[in-house]
């Protein structure tokens, strides 16, 4: 699939995605990224620094949300710019030993802007957990053919 700027319109939906998260996923992300802050894997530590419990890395949420854009673009390298603000934590319940997720993150994307000169589309992502937005101004700029 090759995306053409002329065939896109502002407001067009690019799709949705549900991301199931477990405590084990956070341990995997910690290892892969090198971010071992214990608030992402140790309940006692997290509550000790006045958090409601173990929370996902903001970068886990940001990193997993963009997959929707990579797939839509057809090439992850087409994502030339990606930014977000982290506004609310994603609290991940301890469901170890069960098949239940500890949290579910919902992602939806729409075309937010088109730049005919730069041949880019800005995708605005809405990322929610438990009905609340956890990322704000989450925008990915995609280079088009």
């Amino acid at each position, binding site marked *: 699939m090759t995306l053409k700027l002329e065939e896109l319109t502002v407001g067009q939906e690019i799709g949705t995605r549900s991301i199931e998260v477990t405590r084990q996923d956070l341990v995997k992300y910690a290892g892969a990224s090198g971010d071992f802050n214990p608030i992402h894997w140790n309940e006692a530590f997290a509550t000790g620094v006045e958090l409601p419990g173990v929370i996902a890395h903001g970068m886990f949420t940001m990193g997993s949300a963009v997959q929707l854009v990579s797939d839509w673009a057809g090439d992850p390298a087409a994502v030339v*710019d990606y930014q977000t603000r982290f506004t609310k934590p994603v609290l991940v319940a301890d469901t170890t030993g069960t098949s239940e997720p500890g949290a579910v993150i919902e992602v939806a994307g729409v075309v937010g802007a088109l730049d005919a000169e730069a041949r880019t589309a800005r995708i605005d992502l809405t990322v929610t957990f438990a009905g609340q937005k956890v990322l704000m101004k989450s925008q990915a700029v995609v280079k088009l053919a």
Partner: protein
Amino acid sequence: MTINPDLQGRSYPAAEVYDVGREKIREFARAVKATHPAHFDVEAAKALGHDDLVAPPTFAIIVAQRADAQLIEDPDSGIDFSRVVHADQRFTHHRAIVAGDQLRAELHVDGVRAMGGGAMITTRSEIFAVREDNQRERVATTTSSILVRGEGQ
């Protein structure tokens, strides 16, 4: 301990080289639940015109956070890592990161702003590769703001 306001404008030169390996790209892609074949299958990446496996769009955080560690671990900075909250993040890719890249990051402290008893610190990592002719090739610019919570925040 309070944040040192003199941090603003400070730079930390590129330290170690980060070698981007195929298995690290695959591991990171799995960790962010990415499934695009260009992260896993060399032939799929080549079919899209890339030299090797393509890193996910937020992969550069590994290199950027290593650079940030120089500031956070600097005893002069006054930052208590256990009170750090990530406030915002941006990646600007000048070109795709692919397996085989050797990356370096130069860290700049662009802003320090007092907030209550804490501070908001904005850093920028200029990530580059060194070409065979010793010229820098810009790869990515990452910017990040962290909130260091003061007591009771």
